[in-house]
């Protein structure tokens, strides 16, 4: 499908993507985490762009971050120091984990871009006071953008951006729903590219293309080959080879609890509330990242319900090495899955994770075991 190809290209030819966006007059604000208020950045007339590590070797970042820091944090810093992100006009760091917290400081202190903002988000999301605080952090972010860009963001601007991002989320959910119900209709690596591309490319273009993809899927034949259905759980999963390995073994990824997946696009921002309140509610109520707290069983409850909903046969934990929040949750999540008779396997990914050979055998064994 030619539309899907555009999403692959948006990410693989990042500099070209950025150059095209800049020609439209939008400044590019990068961020490393799915808790960044993209709608706010967009409403400020800027382009929000999620940063992924390009996976180049670590050279300059060695002077700032020790080897026991995860490859996402080190990789993004390396990309910046090596000049691969020179198209950025600014960056925004929502507070999530300890490593991102320090990346923000190191980035600011060695800063090469015009705009910088920290979003000191609450870690606790399930109290009325944290809801008030969340909204006040977004209000400060809005004010920071307005001051830096000498603009004013109206409620109408914000409402329009919210509507656009809701369209993107709706289309992605529709496509994902097809993909989950009819594995094989599109490939897992394509689904992954649609999500990643939608975090990178011009959002009007993304919304239009995703609408086309969703429409095409309705007319595509439904494959009837039985597959082993797998749910992925982890943080960033930016490894097309992993989806290929699952499929090569006769499996399909039918759902995920990833920040580069359903955690990002599931759910909507309410359009009938004051925009900042609606955004604050969205970031409190969306599927939670383990660096945040909304209860003691929230993540396990969600994972089990996801497995049930997608009729998955098993869960594959994609653990980024040195990712503390996920590593702390893993034994508990596994125990909850075991108690329900749901099989799982943990796959630890390090900087060399792009080498398919390292994990394809293990994935194959796991899928065959299910």
């Amino acid at each position, binding site marked *: 499908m030619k539309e899907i190809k555009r999403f692959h290209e948006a990410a693989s030819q990042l500099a070209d993507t950025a150059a095209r966006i800049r020609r439209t007059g939008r400044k590019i604000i990068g961020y490393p985490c799915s808790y960044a208020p993209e709608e706010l950045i967009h409403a400020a007339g800027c382009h929000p762009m999620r940063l992924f590590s390009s996976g180049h070797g670590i050279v300059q970042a060695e002077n700032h*971050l020790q080897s*026991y820091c995860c490859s996402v944090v080190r990789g993004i810093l390396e990309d910046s120091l090596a000049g691969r992100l020179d198209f950025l006009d600014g960056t925004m760091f929502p507070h999530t984990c300890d490593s991102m917290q320090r990346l923000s400081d190191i980035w600011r202190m060695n800063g090469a871009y015009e705009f910088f903002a920290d979003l*000191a988000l609450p870690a606790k999301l399930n109290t009325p006071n*944290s809801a008030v605080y969340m909204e006040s952090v977004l209000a400060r972010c809005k004010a920071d953008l307005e001051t830096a860009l000498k603009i004013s963001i109206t409620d109408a601007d914000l409402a329009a951006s919210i509507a656009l991002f809701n369209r993107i989320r709706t289309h992605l959910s529709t496509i994902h729903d097809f993909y989950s119900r009819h594995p094989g209709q599109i490939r897992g690596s394509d689904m992954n590219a649609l999500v990643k591309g939608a975090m990178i490319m011009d959002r009007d273009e993304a919304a239009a293309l995703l609408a086309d993809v969703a429409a095409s899927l309705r007319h595509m034949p439904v494959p009837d080959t039985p597959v082993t259905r797998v749910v992925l759980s982890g943080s960033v999963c930016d490894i097309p080879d992993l989806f290929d390995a699952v499929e090569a073994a006769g499996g399909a990824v039918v759902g995920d609890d990833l920040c580069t997946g359903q955690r990002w696009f599931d759910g909507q921002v309410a359009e009938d509330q004051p925009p900042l309140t609606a955004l604050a509610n969205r970031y409190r109520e969306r599927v939670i990242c383990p660096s945040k707290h909304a209860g003691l069983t929230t993540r396990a409850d969600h994972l089990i319900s996801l497995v049930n909903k997608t009729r998955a046969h098993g869960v594959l934990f994609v653990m980024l090495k040195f990712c*503390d929040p996920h*590593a702390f949750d893993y*034994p508990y999540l*596994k125990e909850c899955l075991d108690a329900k008779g749901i099989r799982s396997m943990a796959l630890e990914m390090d900087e060399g994770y792009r080498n398919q050979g390292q994990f394809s055998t293990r994935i194959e064994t796991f899928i065959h075991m299910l």
Partner: protein
Amino acid sequence: MSDTPSPPPKIMAAKKMRDLMTTYYLEALSAAQNHRQVAWITSGGPVEPLVAMDIIPVYPENHGAMIGSAKMGEDLCAKAEDMGYSGDLCAYARSDIACAVVKGGPIGGLPKPDMLICCNNICGTVLKWYEIQARYFQVPLFIFDTPVCHTGYTPEIAAYVKTQVNEYIAFLEQVSGKKMDPARMNAVGKLSYEGQRLWQQVLNTTAHKPSPMSAFDAFFFLALIVTLRGTQIAVDFYKELIAELEQRIKDGIGVVPDETYRLLWDNLPVWHRLKWLSDRFSAHQACLVADTYTSAWCGALKYMDENNFLDSMAEAYTRIYLNIGVDEMAEEVLKMIRFYDIHGLVMHSNRSCKPYSFGQMDIMRIVREKTGIPVLMIEADMVDPRSFSESQIETRIDAFMEIVKHKAGRS
């Protein structure tokens, strides 16, 4: 006359502190028999309301330090790994999680908590760790959420943390079934302030040359300001310690014989190698006179109002050393280098503590640029000895001390 100087007399207060800590742990371990409640709390957490409500605070991190010092870290960490926890996670958390299950460690495990108080001003790790323990012990968890002050204490952060002081007290009243007595709270607040002021005074004594104690002593004497903050016991003890240290200063007693070089330590101690490290540096006439770690329990005094403790507590607990930006941390390090007249900085790159360790390399650069003093970075872990390479670290310390001597000799 002997060539080797005789070792200085030991600090006498050490025995008293051991006794106080033993009493404290005995009281905590027998809490249930005495119908008293126990709260587990993070080391940087606001303990004063617990003290005011007669709830016994217990510190898993202090317990982690004891496990490390007792060289019991490896077994407990390995046990946690058997339970499915990655070996890359914080060793305090790993050893505590394992200890709760196997009742191991130097005191056979901590007393079972009635509640958990987690303040994330030191890291995000404690949030996950306390979630795990709240599920394991099935007790209520209160999260005192202190957003990171990367570039300052914003009005939004101030408002949010202040509302949580009230939530915290309401939580304690609910779990304990008792009302907080405001007069008692004020008294505890004053004692906490006084204890922290005295602790700062203890640390300040090492500005004297020769230094009457070292950072290794501070790591030991720290236990009281952590565990008994807000009590008369801590205040009385530190007064006594100060008197003894001042007497040592008067008598010209230095903790390192022939102290010639003064060093600053950064990050948590390597609990399982304190003596070894102390001996290595002493052999070079070098004294680690100060550290960035122990001063965390008095560094926020400037934000604290002893007459209005509860109101000022929000800011003081939010703006502690680890909850600020790396550039502000570097400023603190520079201040210490000037105050203690430091010849070299030793940084412990601690695999167990990411928020303390990431950013160290930038601090190292800033220190080199602004002061020109040599900086040594050693990679280790505060509790887990498996990441400690003794011969490599010894070689690096020797090489570092050569540079320190060379630079100090030239200046």
